[in-house]
């Protein structure tokens, strides 16, 4: 079976830039970067990035496909938008980082076990289940993502905070039974399904 990753490699051969322009959200902006590095200096988690945004942009142009897509750099984005407002060329850097992370994730070559990748996946799956986020089941899923024993440890660690929130009526133990959601479940799910279908067809993920 050919994976989406192998198909993409065959299709774009040596032009990773073209691949990014075609398949990554806002990827058509990558060639506009002039390498000033203001984004790197503006990032609150700047020193956690193995390759700051301007470096990723240059690596894309240099065809370093594997190094870019397997990097955990873009997973450090907190969505603070500092880089966007300071970029002298007005690149939507935050969105390109999100787009790169999503593309690597969908190709299956993003780093395994990367905590933000896992958290983000749990979050999305939680919200599309009923159309609204269930904060209780999301927190529990996070605590227990590394197994039962670790889950109990995590839950005990955050016990005081959790009980405080319950007491302040900002966390509802009853949400375990379902919690908030949209009424038009069928329509909501059909819409998400359709959107996913179109995106998959466009970006080469269609099975």
């Amino acid at each position, binding site marked *: 079976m050919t994976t989406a990753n192998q198909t993409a490699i065959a299709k774009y051969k040596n032009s990773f830039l073209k691949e990014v322009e075609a398949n990554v959200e806002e990827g058509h902006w990558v060639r506009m970067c002039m390498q000033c590095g203001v984004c790197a200096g503006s990032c609150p*988690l700047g020193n956690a990035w193995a390759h700051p945004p301007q470096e990723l942009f240059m690596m894309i142009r240099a065809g370093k496909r594997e190094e870019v897509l397997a990097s955990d750099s873009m997973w450090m984005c907190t969505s603070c938008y500092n880089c966007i407002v300071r970029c002298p060329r007005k690149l939507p850097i935050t969105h390109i980082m999100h787009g790169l992370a999503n593309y690597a994730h969908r190709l299956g070559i993003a780093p395994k076990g990367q905590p*933000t990748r896992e958290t983000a996946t749990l979050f999305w799956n939680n919200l599309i289940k009923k159309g609204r986020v269930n904060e209780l089941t999301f927190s529990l899923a996070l605590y227990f993502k590394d197994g039962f024993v670790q889950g109990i440890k995590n839950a005990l660690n955050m016990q005081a905070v959790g009980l405080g929130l319950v007491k302040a009526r*900002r966390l509802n133990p009853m949400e375990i039974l379902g919690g908030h959601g949209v009424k038009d479940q069928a329509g909501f799910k059909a819409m998400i399904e359709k959107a996913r279908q179109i995106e998959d067809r466009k970006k080469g993920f269609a099975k």
Partner: protein
Amino acid sequence: MAKKEYAFYPGCSSQSKASASNYLTSVNAMCDKLDVTITEIPDWNCCGASIGYAEGGELPRLALSARNFALAETHLPGKEMVATCAACWLAQREVKERLDHSEVLLKETNEALAAAGLQYQGTTPVRHMVEVLIEDLGYDALKQPVVKPLEGIKFAGYVGCQTNRPFGIAGESFENPVYLDKLVETVGGEAVPYDQKVTCCGGALAFSEPEKSQKQIRDIVESAYDHGAEMIVTPCPLCQANVEIYQSEINKKQGTKFSMPVLYYSQLMTVAYGGSAKEAGLDGQLIKATKLEEIAKK
């Protein structure tokens, strides 16, 4: 003053017994005092927030926000949408901008919406509640209902990221927005100079990268103390939750003694307008805002 009406998008965190339920409580009380009517958009859904991108991709995310617009356009035609959550507002604005500038994305998004029997028309602007307050009402109108000025309380106005960037509030600078300080002063409080007002709290990475986020939060709280603030005030539900909730974690790990209440602007305004502590949602604070409760009791 002419009565103002909006289509209201509260967002997941503002629902009953969710992490920002006290935000909603105080917004309702505040709007009541200001004669602003907010009608909830029927059957609204989550905006995808800032980490929806990884699994959600682009089009499913566009569809999420477009569905909210379509519902507002169908059920509350002619009304502007107002959001109280920074991420909700940002997502709606981003999606509107993209759909209004790309025929391809508009067509594809509407194809997805059609599966739910809906259509995005692009006729509804989206505003943040802060914009409604300072642009549609104005500081003078916000001052009029003040019956209990918050005299003697020093606030650090923590604006955070997503109400400030990339769109922000018109006329404000990204590096040093002043509207929150002005709101504090409008209700009689003192806004201290505060050098971490636009620092990121870590956002959703508070869950996945707790150490890195807690370093951010420590800076935000420490600077408030350094500048003599007694409370932090913010317009963002995730800023509020992160900066309040993790203080005890930071104390536990790093031996600090943080106990800085973190409030919403709407809670300050509700108290200043004569609302009770309950109406202001002060019972929802993990770190009690005692001085504010005392003013509310007077």
